[in-house]
């Protein structure tokens, strides 16, 4: 029947045209002439730097994240859930917001330097950490702390504490218990978290480009520079292939690790092993962890605060001036449109990307949920679908692919593939790219919900005379509505926050918010600085709202690994 083909055809056609074809063109362009550049010390040094900064970032994130995961998993104290939300919120924050936050906190005109000047007067020591490796590492820890807290903390909170107690009774010291009992039990989660953090920081783009300054370049940043500045698409493509292979390999290892980590442990319900801190040492640990998370998250409130503070010398106090300026289009300004128009562009692109992601994601989720397809199909035709299994495996593989394809690589792919037919002019390429980047998240939100539908409901509907389309509209969709909402919001936030693809694909007259913020941050003067922070605050607010709705709709799936 036709519906069944459509379920496969829509995602396959979309993914072939907008993912596989651009990747094939990257492969062609890279193989055609990019790789000889790799004998260059320059390119090799970029690859080397990418690796060791990722290792360093992973180590630091674990160092900060493991104690936080322990405290959040094992102690009950006032403000625990707020602390948890605070530690996990950064993950959805757009990179330009984070960069603007760090600039607002630690930059030359930042809050910290202002405070120093306030305390010590004019001769105050100026800290200037922007454009150093230190601030890049800090931003990486800021971003990925939530990965460790979610994965490791999730497992830690359900581990049976009696194992540790038994070790203690048998005479093991605290350290020995940790080393011989707890850590081995947590090892799969720690390994998975470390691998994910490595994966994310290996592909770090915005943080390094915006905060790292001209000295630092990861592979992603170099792909951007080779594309936009040096115009050597072949070298950029070759680098993209390296990036692609590395991330796909890491993703494969992660998948393996996830499968093996499902060891039969006697788990306790989450929270059952949490107790209030009683000893002085426990309180110290909880307090220290709170302080760490609060300090680490300081860039976000700093951003909002700074965007409301007047930066003009001689004018003190709070002001809405920079928000007002967003609506103006000064002649001779950097943009074709007032910055606020970028907000409209961004919302428009995000809306279109959400729709596209759902239009492709829903059939894809159906196709991957064999159960659902079959029960719709069988309920209707009572015939077996042949070759379904193979098609599902292939589709599943392709749908996971965007996880390993970064926004920059996708942007480069569109330039290489769609430049010659002249499609780059179309503003629709941006929502298409965003929909692709969001697709894995959308499908992952929808499949469990579809799988959970009891096939007997569909059969009942069928018996009562409903056609397949009617079954989908009246039975399935209402039942998966919460998952649909979550999937849509994921797509919306991915699109809203994307920096890489928009940077390469946005036309000068259709800038998105992240592109405008990045350009404002690169310019001198209080007005540009203030506007960048104001726009960053708006983007932070919208993202935070979406994040809170997601948390509210699916409260349980967050705390389990």
């Amino acid at each position, binding site marked *: 029947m036709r519906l069944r083909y459509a379920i496969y055809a829509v995602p396959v056609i979309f993914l072939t045209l907008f993912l596989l074809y651009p990747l094939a063109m990257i492969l062609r362009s890279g193989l055609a002439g990019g790789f000889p550049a790799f004998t260059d010390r320059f390119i090799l040094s970029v690859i080397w730097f990418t690796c060791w900064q990722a290792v360093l970032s992973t180590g630091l994130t674990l160092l900060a994240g493991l104690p936080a995961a322990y405290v959040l998993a094992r102690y009950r104290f006032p403000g625990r859930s707020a602390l948890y939300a605070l530690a996990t919120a950064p993950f959805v924050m757009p990179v330009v917001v984070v960069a603007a936050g760090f600039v607002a906190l630690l930059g030359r005109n930042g809050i910290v330097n202002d405070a120093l000047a306030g305390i010590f007067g004019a001769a105050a020591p100026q800290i200037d950490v922007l454009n150093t490796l230190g601030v890049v590492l800090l931003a990486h820890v800021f971003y990925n702390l939530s990965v460790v807290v979610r994965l490791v903390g999730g497992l830690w909170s359900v581990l049976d504490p009696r194992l540790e107690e038994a070790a203690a009774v048998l005479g093991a010291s605290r350290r020995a218990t940790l080393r011989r009992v707890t850590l081995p039990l947590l090892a799969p989660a720690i390994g998975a978290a470390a691998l994910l953090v490595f994966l994310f920081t290996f592909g770090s783009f915005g943080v390094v480009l915006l905060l790292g300054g001209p000295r630092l370049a990861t592979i992603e940043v170099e792909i951007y520079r080779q594309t936009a500045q040096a115009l050597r698409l072949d070298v950029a493509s070759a680098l993209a292939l390296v990036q692609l292979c590395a991330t796909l390999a890491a993703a494969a290892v992660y998948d393996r690790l996830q499968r093996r980590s499902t060891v039969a442990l006697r788990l306790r319900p989450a929270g059952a092993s949490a107790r209030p801190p009683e000893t002085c040492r426990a309180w110290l640990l909880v307090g220290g962890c709170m302080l760490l998370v609060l300090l680490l998250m300081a860039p976000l409130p700093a951003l909002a605060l700074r965007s409301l503070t007047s930066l003009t010398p001689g004018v003190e106090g709070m002001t809405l001036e920079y928000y007002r300026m967003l609506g103006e289009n000064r002649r001779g300004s950097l943009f074709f449109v007032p910055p606020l128009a970028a907000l409209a562009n961004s919302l*428009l692109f995000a*809306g279109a990307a959400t729709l596209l992601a*759902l239009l492709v994601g829903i059939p894809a989720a159906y196709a991957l949920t064999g159960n659902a397809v079959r029960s719709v199909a069988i309920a209707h035709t009572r015939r077996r679908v042949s070759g379904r299994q193979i098609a599902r495996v292939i589709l599943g593989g392709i749908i996971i692919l965007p996880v390993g394809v970064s926004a920059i690589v996708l942007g480069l792919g569109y330039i290489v593939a769609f430049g010659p037919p002249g499609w780059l002019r179309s503003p629709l390429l941006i929502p298409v790219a965003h929909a692709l980047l969001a697709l894995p998240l959308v499908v992952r939100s929808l499949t469990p919900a579809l799988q959970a539908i009891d096939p007997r409901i569909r059969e009942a509907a069928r018996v009562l005379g409903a056609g397949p389309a009617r079954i989908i509209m009246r039975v399935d969709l209402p039942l998966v509505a919460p998952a649909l909402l979550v999937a849509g919001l994921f797509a919306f936030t991915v699109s809203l926050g994307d920096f890489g693809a928009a940077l390469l694909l946005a036309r000068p007259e259709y800038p998105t918010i992240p592109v405008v913020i990045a350009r404002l941050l690169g310019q001198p003067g209080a007005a540009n600085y203030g506007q960048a922070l104001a726009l960053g605050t708006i983007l932070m607010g919208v993202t935070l709202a979406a994040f809170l709705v997601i948390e509210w709709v699916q409260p349980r799936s967050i705390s389990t690994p």
Partner: protein
Amino acid sequence: MRTRWRRRFAGGARRYVHTAWGIVVMVLATMLLAACGGAAQTGGPPTPASAPGERRLVVMTHDSFAVSEDVMADFEREQSVSVEVLPSGDAGSALNKAILSKDAPLADVFFGVDNTFLSRALNAEIFEPYQSPALAAIPDDLKLDPSARLVPIDFGYVTINYDRAFLEARNLAPPQQLADLTGPAWKGLLVVEHPATSSPGLAFLMATIATFGEDGSYTWRDFWRDLRANDVLVAEGWNDAYYTHFSGSSGQGPRPLVVSYATSPAAEVFFSEGKLETPPTGNLMAGSFKQIEFAGVLKGAREPELARRFIDFMLSRRFQEDIPLQMFVYPVLPDAALPDVFVRFAQVPSDPAIIAPERIERNRERWIEEWTQIVLR
């Protein structure tokens, strides 16, 4: 039966159904809008809301392009056209955007290819030749493209500016040669721009290559190695270098030496609006690079005839005389009168470096990468 399962299974989800459908409808609406926007775009360069029947000319350029309102208004009135300026990043990025979108050009005219990028622009074949009658009055040594796909509009000298007050306070004599900058007296005092992202940065790199050469006992690489040892600061762009890090500008940064233009001291007097009688900054006269900026008609322009009129206009006396105080470079038209501050304070460097565009094109990326390796890694 039907109502029973509904109650049982859909009950929990019902409160989301409304929201979800609301979102779907909203998203559909925005999608439709975006599609309409897209459809409107397929015809040619951007067409923001305008009076019906009015023609539109799109000029793609870099972020530093500037022109007086009334000068532009004259052209718009004469040709009954509305001109849209499309700033597209730094000079290199703007040109690359134009090259990448050559199969569906974003604009009719491109302004801002300089002689360091001339060969790339010409090799990409994105410009139509146009022998403007106004070219007759332009000196031949500025016309680097004989087939006139790109015509010269302005030129300037990239050199090092120093902050007079800073030097006087420290009893330092201004540097005379580029080689002086590697001395201990100038440690930690110079800010330059990244040649990959900034056209004055690239021009200054060219000046050092022309000054020190590629072979010999002391090459440009040795010079930059010494500069690095002397704690040179690299900024992404001119704006950042000049207004954030340079002490002689209104930004009052910490460093008294900056790579800028020979006309910047005159600009400081002009922008002080009467507060300054003499320039607060001076030029290092040796080791400069002559930068010429070009404009051309893009292939596939929607308004090629208007684009040619715009090239004529940029070469006209009206536009040429507007250049100095808007972009602080020299007009290519020898008859154009220079403003008073230029006559009094702008110094023309004695012996500006010249490197053939073909040689730059052959070596540019290699030089930039070598430079990055030496100075930044």
